């Protein structure tokens, strides 16, 4: 795990000048891999795809796995995806860890190779956006993108990741039903952003606010964290 030192940051959502304090914490340098998740499933049969309850994981949970204890042709070091929030949370608990909070994740992910907060750098934003635009290639293993200044790999460029309080994102006039509210939803959100330039973060927040705890996605995995000191 890598130690991330405490500090303040201005999140994308919140009041202007509402800095958030983040305490020291440890976070896995790489996302949880297929091989590691398989080990967890061996010890925790209730999380195997044939046993897991629908309220904790939807039908696409581990969808690429042909069998309960077989992740198929993929590389063991590929990040495990199609994992629900409940499953990710249990995995971390089993390791004596927890999921990172949304603020911890965003705080750690502001960094590039050289600086702790690279959000104003053109190169940083271009890198993230070009990843968002690229279709998922698959078969990429953990540690294949850049290592940031904290020593953490792949926060951008490999997969999207669960956070502990992913459901704390409040976008004005939140709506899951479409209709008239959708217009209000989009424009209201854009105006409320404290940092319009940071539209990459905007997409992450939008994604988080659209999912439920039992949802899974083939681009959505996780890593664990732990309190500092």
């Amino acid at each position, binding site marked *: 795990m890598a130690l991330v030192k405490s500090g303040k940051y201005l999140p994308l959502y919140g009041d202007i000048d509402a800095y958030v304090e983040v305490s020291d914490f440890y976070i896995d340098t790489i996302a949880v891999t297929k091989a590691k998740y398989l080990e967890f499933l061996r010890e925790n049969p209730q999380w195997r795809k044939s046993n897991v309850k629908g309220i904790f994981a939807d039908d696409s949970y581990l969808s690429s796995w042909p069998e309960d204890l077989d992740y198929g042709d993929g590389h063991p070091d590929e990040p495990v995806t199609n994992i629900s929030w409940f499953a990710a949370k249990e995995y971390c608990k089993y390791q004596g860890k927890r999921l990172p909070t949304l603020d911890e994740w965003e705080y750690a992910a502001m960094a590039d190779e050289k600086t702790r907060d690279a959000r104003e750098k053109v190169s940083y934003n271009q890198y993230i956006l070009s990843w968002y635009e690229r279709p998922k290639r698959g078969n990429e293993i953990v540690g294949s993108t850049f290592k940031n200044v904290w020593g953490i790999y792949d926060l951008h460029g490999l997969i999207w990741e669960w956070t502990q309080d992913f459901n704390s994102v409040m976008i004005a006039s939140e709506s899951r039903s479409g209709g008239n509210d959708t217009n209000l939803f989009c424009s209201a959100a854009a105006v409320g952003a404290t940092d319009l330039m940071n539209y990459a973060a905007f997409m992450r927040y939008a994604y988080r606010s659209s999912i439920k*705890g039992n949802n899974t996605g083939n681009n959505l995995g996780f890593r664990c964290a732990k309190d500092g000191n």
Partner: protein
Amino acid sequence: MISFQKMLKSIVYISILFLIVSCKQSETQDAEILNATESSSNSEFSDMSIFNLPSAWTNQEGEDIALESLQGKISVMVMIYTSCKAACPRLVADMRNIAKQIPKDKTDQVQYVFVSIDPEVDTPERLKKFAIENQMDSPEWLFLRGTEEDTREFAAVLAMSYKRISPIDFSHSNIISVFNRKGELIHQREGLSVDSKETVAAIQNLLR
């Protein structure tokens, strides 16, 4: 500098993403609700039941209560916090309005549940006081408080978002959810003072 044009392009792109995501979301939700209804044939609760949640709660009388104990009743649930001045009183009014439209002789079959998103402040005593103040001090009204973690988990099941925005205030989505007697989510209504017709219809349908 990223050019303005490029930024605009991205905003359009993001808006499209929003639309896609929200459409997808409502589809899955319907599918899940359907699944729940289909799989509710045996007497044990199904995979989609909230009774699977291992969380432990305390009610306004200070008694420990498991969600499972709601089995057999139709539950109408909403998440609030008692020090809330803006949206919550309206949610409380909405709940009362829904309850009013249910025939009196069916009252014992429906449980109206308020789950606190502020378990630190909302002690059982405080919940009891809130119940009395709102004339909800009778058995059909249940006020629950759990740990921070269990509350977050419960919200994840309801697709309900909340965040502490100041020492006393939370922002939160306004969702009223209806569960059948086996704890499966049947209906959700989002928004404040929205017409309660559909919610009432969903409850009446389950009472039949």
